[in-house]
C-alpha cells in the first residue's frame, strides 16, 4: 500500500545571486512499513525533502501525499526526530514524550500509560522523571524518538538523528532504530550522510546530488532485516555483500561530486 507519495517535487529558494534549486523533480513512493534512507553530501537537499514531507515548507512544484492526502502543513500523522535542539528542557523526559498528547487534549492517565510504554520501547523507562538536559546525546535522541512515536504517526521522519553522536553510541542507536521500526511497523524516512548507516538501516536508499538536489541513484537493501534475524551487526556489516553495496553507493556519491 502506497503511504508516502512524493510527486515531482521541486523546491526553489530565492537567494541574492539568483534562485537556488534545492530540489528538482524528486519523485518516489514509500509503501507502508518501509524504511527509506536519503543519502547525500551536505547541501544536496535532504533536509529540504524531509521538510517538505513534514510540511515545514511549501514546495514550489509538485506535491507530497500521505495516504492520498496532500501535505499542506505539519501534523501529528508525521512524527519528526531532529538532529538536536528539539527537546523541551523545561519538561522532564516523561513530559517531553507526552507533549503532543497533552496538546491534543488526551487525558492525563492515558497519556501517562502511553508515555511509559514509549519509554519502555526505547529503553528509558527508568529515566521518566529525569530532566532531559542531564541526559547524554544518545539518550536525548531516544527521548526524541519516543516523543515522535507517542502520537502514533503514520510516518516517522528522521533528520540525521544520529549525526551528533559518537561512533559507539551511533551503532547502538542504529540497532535500536531497527528494533523500534520492526516492533512498531512504522514507515520511516531517514536522512544520513553516513553510507554505512544507510546500507545497514534502509530497505531502500536514495542518493541525492547537490545543486540541484535530484535523485541520482536508488537501490533496495536487505541488511536491516538481516540484522533483525541474526542480531549481530558486526557480522552483517562485515559481510562481503554489505561491503560491496557500501562501496557501490560510495562510488555513486563520488560521481555526483565530480
Amino acid at each position: 500500500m502506497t503511504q508516502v507519495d512524493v510527486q515531482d517535487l521541486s523546491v526553489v529558494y530565492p537567494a541574492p545571486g539568483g534562485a537556488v534549486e534545492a530540489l528538482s523533480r524528486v519523485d518516489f513512493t514509500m509503501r507502508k512499513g518501509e524504511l527509506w534512507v536519503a543519502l547525500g553530501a551536505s547541501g544536496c537537499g535532504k533536509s529540504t525533502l524531509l521538510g517538505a514531507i513534514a510540511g515545514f515548507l511549501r514546495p514550489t512544484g509538485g506535491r507530497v501525499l500521505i495516504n492520498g492526502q496532500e501535505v499542506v502543513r505539519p501534523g501529528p500523522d508525521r512524527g519528526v526526530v531532529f538532529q538536536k535542539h528539539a527537546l523541551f528542557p523545561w519538561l522532564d523526559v516523561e513530559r517531553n514524550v507526552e507533549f503532543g498528547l497533552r496538546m491534543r487534549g488526551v487525558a492525563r492517565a492515558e497519556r501517562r500509560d502511553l508515555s511509559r510504554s514509549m519509554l519502555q520501547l526505547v529503553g528509558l523507562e527508568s529515566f521518566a522523571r529525569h530532566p532531559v538536559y542531564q541526559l547524554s546525546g544518545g539518550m536525548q535522541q531516544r527521548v526524541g524518538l519516543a516523543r515522535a512515536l507517542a502520537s502514533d504517526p503514520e510516518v516517522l521522519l528522521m533528520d540525521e538523528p544520529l549525526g551528533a553522536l559518537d561512533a559507539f553510541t551511533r551503532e547502538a542507536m542504529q540497532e535500536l532504530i531497527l528494533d523500534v521500526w520492526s516492533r512498531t511497523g512504522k514507515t520511516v524516512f531517514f536522512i544520513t550522510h553516513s553510507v554505512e548507516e544507510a546500507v545497514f538501516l534502509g530497505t531502500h536508499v536514495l542518493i541525492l546530488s547537490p545543486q540541484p538536489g535530484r535523485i541520482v541513484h536508488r537501490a533496495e537493501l536487505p541488511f536491516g532485516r538481516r540484522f533483525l534475524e541474526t542480531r549481530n551487526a558486526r557480522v552483517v556489516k562485515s559481510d562481503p555483500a554489505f561491503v560491496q553495496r557500501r562501496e557501490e553507493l560510495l562510488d555513486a556519491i563520488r560521481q555526483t561530486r565530480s
Partner: protein
Amino acid sequence: MPSARLEAEAPPLNPVGPVDPAPPRPTRGPSSPRSPEAYGRPTARAAPAISAGTVVVLLSLWWIASERGWVPPLFLPSPRAIWQTFLSLQAEDSTGGTLLQHAGASLARVFGAFLVAALFAIPVGLSMGTSRILRGILDPLVEFYRPLPPLAYLPMTIIWFGIGEKQKGVLLFLAMFAPLALSARAGVRSVAAEQVQAALSLGASRRQIFLHVVLRAALPEILTGMRIAIGFGWTTLVAAEMVAATRGLGQMVLNASGFLRTDIMVVGIVLIGLIACTFDLLMRQLERWLVPWKGRA
C-alpha cells in the same frame, strides 16, 4: 632543515653511562588539587574566600584610618559612628522618618514601578519578538530611548507629571521598561526552530506553541532582564527621589548632605547597596530554581 634543528635540541638517545629510570616528577599532593584545565577558557567559578578577604581588608583599613584620625570624621566617619547612627535612625528624627520607613518608601517605589513596567514591557517585548509588524513599529522607539540616561529626561517627567509620586513612578517605569522589553524580545529569539517544528509536528496550535514553547524558552532571558531592570531602577532611584520626596533612602542621603551628615549618608549608601545585592542574589536563586536548564540545553 627543521628536522635537523629538532634533532639537535632533542636529548641524546643513548646517554653515556648507566641508564637510570627517570626520577619521578614531583606531583602535587591531594592538599593542593589543581584544575588540569590550565589552558581552557577563563573559569567562571566564584571565589568566596578571596571576596571575603577583600571585604575584611577594606573594612579594616576604614576602621584603622578613622580610628587613627588619618581622615577627619566629616569626610569618613568611623565604622563605630556609622553603627551608632544606624541604630539612632531606627527612631524618627531629623531625617523625617525612621530608617525602616525610608527603606520601605524606596522599596515600594522601585518594586511598584517594576511590577507595572514588567506588566507592560514583557508583553510588548514578546510581541516584538513574534510579530514583524510590531517589531517594525516599536524598534525605533525602544532603541532610541533605551540608551538615554534617566537623568536626561528627568526634567521632562517633572514638567509632564509634576513632582509627586506619579513622576517618580514614571521615571522608574521608563528606566526599567527598556531592559525588560528587550530581554523578552531576545528571549523569543532563543527558541530553536527545531523546537517550534517539533511542536507543530506533535499537533500543537499556534497559540499552544506560544504558551508552551516560546514563552518557556524565553523565560531565562526574561529573568535576566528582570535582574538588569531592577538594578537599573535602583540606580535611578536617587535621581527619582531628588525632587520633592519626603521619604526614601535617596532622599535621606541627599537631605543629609545638606547638613554635612556624612554618617547618615554612608548608612543610606550602604543600605542601598545591600538591598540591591540581596535582590540580585534572590533573583539568581530564583533563576536556579525556575530555569535550571539555562545554558545547558
